[in-house]
């Protein structure tokens, strides 16, 4: 009897190994995706899938084409990322498998996209040809084509595309100076409402997180264009009309972004165009409530999820710096220099850490938002946008 035991040992060990491999695979298969995200490596046409619970990369996905200015939205189950490339590529990435599930070239040159309230439609805004195309989020089949034609046949570049309640998409026409609402209640036959003469060259836009206000920045003139989606019949009105008046604007080396809506109390914070300032807007009166002097021309002005602080990055030649603003005192409380080319920031959903891409150092740096100290550095090739799956459940992101 006793002499037989040693013969059994290899068998027992192999069974145990088999069981543990199985359970490891099973665990991998049923893991959640709420703590995942991706970093765009734009010159490689690749994305790195990351995990924020342990601050590491899980995998890298290649073959996404030209990712200049790429942006990302997520399916409502937080499993799939829709990556919008400059070359008109729309790529659906499986975050759990770390691979491309589908990829199409839907236009010649595009700028961004959005996912509908019901999660079934993905819309892409295009430069060439101008307009918006809408796809089935499961199959990436074309559902609707909305050409942005104006002045009897000219085609406009489209910017600032967001989703809005009521399964609508809202976007701005750079060349035409218009804002359009596309109601997708009947996905094959979008009902478009046009607002004309909203201002010269809307360059980007945002929607408040409640989905009520759509605000477009104007490159060609002072002020912002505001559309109240609860009352579209009131039309688009201009806010902050005196902004920038009487001051010589600086050359704008990079277009600011209006993604996200930095709000604290009644104040909203937006980047000034052509000035070293962050503009504070009183959201009750939609008038200017102040200007905060900062180091350079702001690109992203982003609020921590708790609204306590605003983090700002800058255009050249100050693109090595991040400044942090206290939203109570409206003062800059910290300046840090992560390195040249701090292109984007993304807060973890509850705001305890912020990730930032530092292009020229080929790094993603992670900071503790309480003490503004760097806690980790991860390698990434020319990183640009960082997008977490938590965006899946936020209107406008």
């Amino acid at each position, binding site marked *: 009897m006793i002499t037989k035991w040693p013969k059994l040992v290899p068998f027992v060990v192999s069974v145990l190994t088999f069981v543990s491999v199985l359970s490891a695979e099973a665990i991998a298969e049923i893991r959640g995706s709420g703590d995942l995200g991706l970093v765009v490596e*734009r*010159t490689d046409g690749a994305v790195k899938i990351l995990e924020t619970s342990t601050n590491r990369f899980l995998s890298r996905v290649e073959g996404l084409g*030209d*990712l*200049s*200015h790429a942006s990302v939205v997520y399916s409502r189950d937080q499993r799939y990322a829709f990556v919008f490339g*400059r*070359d008109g590529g729309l790529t659906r990435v499986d975050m759990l498998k770390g691979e491309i599930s589908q990829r199409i070239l839907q236009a010649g*040159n595009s*700028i961004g996209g959005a996912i509908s309230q019901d999660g079934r439609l993905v819309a892409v805004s295009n*430069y*060439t040809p101008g307009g918006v195309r809408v796809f089935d989020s499961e199959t990436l089949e074309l559902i609707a084509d909305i050409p942005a034609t104006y002045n009897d046949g000219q085609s406009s*570049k489209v*910017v600032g595309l967001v989703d809005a309640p009521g399964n609508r998409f809202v976007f701005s026409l*750079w060349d035409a100076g218009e804002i359009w609402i596309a109601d997708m209640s009947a996905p094959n036959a979008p009902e478009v409402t046009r607002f004309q003469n909203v201002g010269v*060259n809307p*360059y980007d836009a945002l929607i408040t997180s409640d989905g009520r206000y759509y605000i477009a920045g104007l*490159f060609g003139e002072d002020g912002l264009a505001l559309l109240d989606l609860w009352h579209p019949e009131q039309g688009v009105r201009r806010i902050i009309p005196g902004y920038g008046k009487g001051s010589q604007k600086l*050359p*704008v*080396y*990079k*277009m600011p972004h209006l993604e996200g809506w930095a709000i604290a109390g009644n104040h909203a914070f937006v980047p000034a165009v052509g000035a070293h300032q962050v503009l504070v807007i009183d959201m009750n009166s939609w008038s200017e409530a102040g200007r905060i002097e900062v180091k350079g021309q702001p690109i992203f002005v982003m609020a921590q999820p708790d609204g306590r602080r605003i983090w700002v990055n800058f255009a*050249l*030649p100050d693109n090595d710096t991040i400044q942090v603003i206290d939203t109570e005192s409206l003062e800059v409380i910290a300046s840090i220099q992560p390195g040249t*080319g701090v292109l984007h920031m993304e807060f973890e959903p509850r705001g305890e850490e912020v990730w930032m891409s530092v*292009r*020229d150092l080929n790094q993603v740096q992670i900071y503790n938002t309480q003490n503004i100290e760097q806690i980790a550095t991860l390698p990434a090739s*020319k990183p640009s946008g960082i997008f977490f799956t938590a965006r899946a459940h936020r209107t406008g992101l």
Partner: protein
Amino acid sequence: MNTRLRLYGLAASLFIAPAWCTDIDPDRERYLTNLVIHDCGSCHGTRLNGGLGPPLTTHALEKYTVEWIELVILNGQNGTAMPPWRDLLSTNDAAWLARALKSGEIE
């Protein structure tokens, strides 16, 4: 007289420009190449195929002279989003960039 002097000046600078271009520091070349791809690229595309700004491929630049491109880099273009870069770039830089873009050296 003034006009003629200015013309001579212009002619002289155009004549001298190519010599400056070849003299540019290799480190500066790398810096400028990175700038074109990543910073100009935010409007013109990191592959220079265009975006909010027009494409800067050799094909797209065929109709412009090197001198014209250099001037646009330095002075920007009124009525468009193209800013003047003269506060950040020297005339040498702009001359090198214009030639490199036109010849397809940066692509």
